[in-house]
């Protein structure tokens, strides 16, 4: 589904990713781990098409198409979803209204009929129930005044509603207490399926207790330094990044 070949990425003229190669197939869950500053978020932003993140070398194929040639909204409509590490607040824009516009933009692109207000609400309610999200959240302006946990749950909720084929979740587990983490994991697991792929970007292993990955990759200084099965995550948890000879900049930051 996703083929990344020798990807180099520069931000503000500084090279952040320095030759990444990765294959993600339908049905798989990949975890990308790494110390802070290793380039994890850069990879996420590049995949979603954020301005200012340019590939200087290499290529990304999504279902055989050149992903980098697509506008951000085209990628979204083709099924690429990015769960943001820091979802932005948009005052005055109702969460529900926003999501309905997004869902219908995606449905239209897929040739599905747009949902009317009633059908949308019905679907939203079911999903909210699954994710234990308070309905009141959706009557509030998008992310405005949401707690960290609420923002992350809202991201997972949006993901569930948009039914992406490739979900990239950037530190969706950070700042969550155990209960919230379980709910988020439930949302992610519900999305797992034969036709979908998930890339989890995380600093810690704990989300991987609930969403078990097929493969784990360790990113450091813009390169994958190690790949393996789910046990690699446990190893990092036990011994830290230092054991892999990596400096974790998070302590200094």
């Amino acid at each position, binding site marked *: 589904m996703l083929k990344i070949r020798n990807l180099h990425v520069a931000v503000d003229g500084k090279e952040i990713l320095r030759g990444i190669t990765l294959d993600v197939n339908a049905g798989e869950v990949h975890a990308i781990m790494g110390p802070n500053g290793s380039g994890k978020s850069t990879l996420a932003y590049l995949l*979603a*098409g*954020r*301005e*200012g993140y340019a590939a200087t070398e290499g290529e990304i194929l999504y279902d055989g198409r050149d992903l980098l040639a697509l*506008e*951000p*909204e085209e*990628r*979204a*409509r083709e099924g690429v*979803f*990015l769960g*943001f590490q820091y*979802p*932005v607040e*948009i*005052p*005055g*824009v*109702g969460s529900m209204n*926003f*999501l309905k*516009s*997004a869902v219908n*933009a*995606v449905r239209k*692109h897929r040739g599905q009929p747009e949902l009317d207000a009633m059908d949308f609400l019905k679907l939203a309610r079911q999903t909210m129930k699954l994710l234990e999200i308070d309905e009141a959240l959706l009557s509030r*302006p*998008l992310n405005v005044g949401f707690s960290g946990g609420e923002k992350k749950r809202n991201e997972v909720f*949006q993901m569930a509603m*948009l039914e992406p084929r490739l979900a990239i979740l950037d530190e969706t587990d950070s700042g969550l207490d155990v209960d919230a983490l379980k709910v988020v994991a439930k949302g992610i697991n519900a999305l797992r399926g034969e036709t979908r792929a998930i890339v989890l970007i995380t600093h810690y292993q704990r989300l991987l207790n609930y969403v078990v990955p097929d493969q784990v990759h360790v990113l450091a200084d813009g390169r994958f330094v190690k790949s393996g099965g789910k046990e690699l995550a446990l190893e990092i948890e036990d011994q830290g990044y230092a054991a892999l000879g990596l400096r974790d900049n998070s302590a200094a930051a």
Partner: protein
Amino acid sequence: MVAIAESVTSLTEGEYKYGFVSNVESDIAACGLSEDTVRFISAKKDEPEWLLAWRLKALRAWTTMKEPSWARVDYSPIDYQDVYYYAAPKSGDRPKSLDEIDPELLRTYEKLGIPLKEQEVLAGVAVDAVFDSVSVATTFKDKLAELGVIFCSFSEAVREHPELVRRYLGSVVPYTDNFFATLNSAVFSDGSFVYVPKGLRCPMELSTYFRINAENTGQFERTLIIADEGSYVSYLEGCTAPMRDENQLHAAVVELITHDDAQIKYSTVQNWYPGDKNGKGGIYNFVTKRGICRGRNSKISWTQVETGSAITWKYPSCILKGDYSVGEFYSVAVTNNYQQADTGTKMIHIGKHTRSTIVSKGISAGHAQNTYRGLVRMTPSAEGARNHTQCDALLLGDRCGAHTVPYIEVKNNTARVEHEATTSKISDDQLFYCRQRGLSAEDSVNLIVNGFCKQVLQNLPMEFAVEAQKLVGISLEGSVG
């Protein structure tokens, strides 16, 4: 910021969808302004002597006045002798029923989305339709009359209710008030008149739809709304004009009066022709709107959505005279291309424990200039008065301007005034977030802009809020809704 730049570029290709001209024969006053013009207008309307005298006093005052230059608007000088001050559709006497109206006029209003006939059957909205200098139709008049509500054209009010008109005309905006209001006082043609009797909550939205059609003609309407003790009325005006390369002048005066415990909610959706994308043509909109809360515990609330006009110069204001009276001003002003808007409000606190709220949202794109100008004055008698002002500006593009000029004068130490203002652009983060969820750049900008305006738009009567939201989008977007 390529994405915003692109969507803003596409905005400038916007089409004004009300720009057609109706083929209606007009009865026009001779060009230019003189005592004769004023007498002609007054005679056309069969006005009483006192009103003619009042107009002539205004004309004399006007000849001694200078056009104000303090606003941040820039336009080539207006030749006041090269304007037609009166134009009316030539259809003989004013039609007695809707069946007698020139079908071309009915078609015009239908095209504008104001079907005068169906409206009567459909919505709970009564409409006064003003075409150039005269009111061509007023719907629901009889039903309202049964309740004691007077809703008619200004000319008719002069004929049928001279005592009310005489008592209130010029009581809020005197004929010497300012250059444009004084001009209006001399030559005003038609407009709406509303009187809501004691204790009545007017069950219908009242609305006036203003249409400029004739060429080179100014529109000088006059609106007067009186809410007697304990009454409530919600009034809405809309305005459009044909696309023309010449600028056309619109200088209106609106006066509102609330007695004890009365409330007027006055909403405007101003969509006069804004000129083309190079700044050619468009309406010069110089408007004086002012309300007085005469009575204790009374309230005047202005909501305006200003998307049209080449020049907007308007400051809907409240004189809060009655103790515990309340003034509100909610405004969205959208300027694109070469539009210029200098708009805001004055809140004059005189009574004890008077309160006012100002929420202004300015959006500027293209080469437009958008200014909030406001005055909050706490006079020495305004014991315990409160004001809160919030002015936010949003800039779309690097060649437009957004300016904030608040004047805050506090002469009572028990009064409290708070003012906050911010200016920003749509952030890259917000735009990217929306696009990542599948929305196009243009839809994203639209969504964010409407979110920015929400606090104001939600104050519009339900029927018009959706319309206004679309209008804000269209003004910026360029797509024909």
